């Protein structure tokens, strides 16, 4: 598909390319406008902050997914990985709480980061060493992580110790100069991600590998390592999302993070990253996550759609957003 598109329209000038890059932000603006028109409460400070805070999970995981997808990979396991990491983190915090009290929170967060990165490493190693399609590997590990969290929670739920609750709460509900922490964390992760992707050797190699793996190999790039590291970054981001998630919902259950993988991939693609790899837009991904969250929010705020049809309207809006995107680009 992609190459056909490229050939179809002659686009070479810097100016045009920049229009394309702006597309997700234009779509975002349009959807915000829609929200304003539909419900006057949409723009209320609280609502906007809520939506932004909430989109943090998909945005943070999406930053990692941008790396994976830019290398030409795909990770379907992020949703269940997130549930699994959340579970491990809660167990670690609960175990440490009696001994070290509130310090169990940073210690548990550290555990989460390590476990998340290791999960990513596992995905990456199976894919690169075993040379199997990422789609299949991560579909497999998706089942594995999901089973583990079901097992760990005994089919029920795994909740954080009451003694830690209030100390941990601000990580989701608190703010710094009026900006909620999850939003700040998203910005930091996106900034670091953008730096890594656009300003370091590793980032260069990520897009090179996704663009043409053979060329990268001939140029001395360790293709397998670059790919694996992208999955590790993905795992790390999943852990960061888990750290923000726990204070919000206080527990991990067998349904935590279900179907997030699809939302994450959608956010990345709406953001302008190509699924075939070779091109990556960190900030586009963040915009994509916001778009998805705002669509859901507007659905709740408006009373117009029957409960049964909400999913249809969401699906339609995503397709329309992409069509708009395409036409902005075609100009």
């Amino acid at each position, binding site marked *: 598909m992609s190459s056909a598109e490229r050939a179809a329209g002659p686009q070479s000038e810097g100016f045009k390319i920049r229009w394309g890059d702006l597309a997700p932000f234009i779509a975002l603006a349009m959807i915000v406008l829609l929200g304003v028109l539909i419900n006057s409460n949409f723009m209320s400070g609280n609502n906007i902050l809520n939506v932004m805070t909430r989109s943090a999970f998909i945005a943070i995981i999406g930053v990692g997914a941008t790396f994976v997808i830019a290398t030409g990979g795909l990770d379907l396991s992020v949703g269940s990985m997130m549930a699994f990491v959340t579970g491990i983190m809660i167990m670690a915090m609960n175990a440490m709480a009696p001994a070290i009290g509130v310090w169990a929170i940073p210690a548990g967060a550290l555990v989460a980061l390590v476990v998340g990165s290791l999960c990513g490493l596992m995905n990456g190693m199976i894919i690169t060493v075993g040379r199997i399609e990422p789609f299949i590997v991560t579909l497999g590990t998706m089942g594995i992580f999901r089973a583990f969290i*079901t097992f760990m929670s005994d089919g029920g739920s795994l909740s954080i110790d009451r003694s830690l609750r209030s100390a941990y709460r601000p990580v989701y509900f608190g703010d710094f100069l009026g900006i909620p922490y999850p939003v700040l964390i998203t910005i930091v992760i996106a900034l670091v991600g953008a730096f890594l992707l656009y300003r370091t050797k590793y980032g260069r190699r990520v897009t090179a590998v996704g663009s043409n793996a053979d060329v990268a190999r001939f140029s001395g790039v360790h293709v397998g390592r670059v790919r694996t590291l992208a999955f590790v970054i993905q795992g790390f981001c999943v852990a960061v999302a888990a750290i923000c998630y726990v204070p*919000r919902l206080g527990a991990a259950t067998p*349904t935590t993070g279900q179907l997030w993988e699809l939302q994450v991939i959608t956010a990345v693609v709406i953001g302008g990253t190509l699924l075939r790899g070779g091109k990556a837009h960190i900030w586009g991904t963040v915009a994509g996550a916001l778009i998805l969250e705002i669509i859901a929010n507007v659905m709740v705020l408006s009373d117009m759609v029957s409960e049964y049809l909400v999913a249809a309207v969401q699906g339609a809006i995503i397709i329309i957003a992409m069509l708009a995107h395409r036409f902005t680009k075609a100009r």
Partner: protein
Amino acid sequence: QDKEFTIAVSIPAATHGWTGGVVYHAQEAEKQLEAAFPNIDVIVSTASSATAQVSSLEDLSATNELDALVILPFTSEELTGPVEQVASNGTFITVVDRGLADPSIQDLYVAGDNIAVGANTAKWLVDKLGGEGEIVVLRGIPTVIDDERIKGFRDVIDETDIEILDIQYANWNQDEAFTLMQDYLARYPNIDAVWANDDDMLLGVLEAVDEAGRDDIKYALGGNGMKQVIEMVKAGDERTPISTPYPPSMIASAMYMTAAQFAGQAPMRGSFKLDAPLITPENADQFYFPDSPF
């Protein structure tokens, strides 16, 4: 009387039969309430996951002055904090079915008795099987509800000589239950009875058993009062002579009781647990709602 009241109703989306029933009853109750009390505004919102439900709580309370919230939590633990948040604004809280981890948050609680659903079914079965035999069990989506039903059932069975050959998840899904039952049948040459802890699954089970033409299965039981199953009970089906109610209409009851707070009638607080009596051919009519989708 001049004051306007807003009641938000937050329920899981219709992902399977029972939740479909919940959505149906909530919408019916919304219509009736709004017709009966012009000063009450009911907003029904469905959510397809715990996270989405938390989000919709935030949305509802950020953009409306909520006087009351009726919630059927997706999961117990995860919704506890967020509901507490809503309660702290002085909103009246009614919890339905799946309880919160901290009951002190709610003003009103309406639920079925899941332990009893399991236990009553088990007692009946023990009685019919004479305290011995081999059975298989299908369980739902990993949740507290499912755990309680299984626990209620197991606790009774464990006291007897009945052996539970196998328990597996079929996610309250008809298809998965069909498949799972076929495999049970292939594996166990003799099965005296099957219990599926939800009627959606029971339909799949029956199909598989009929198809295999196995007559060793004396009883195939479900639970929670699906229309088709009540019909079978009414018709005096030999294999499925009983069921236990777990009516999705409990959401409507909860909504009426909540509205009563504002309609100036007797304020209601506390816990209302619908018990789980056996539905038998004799009393089945009481549990039969031909218009409900469930």
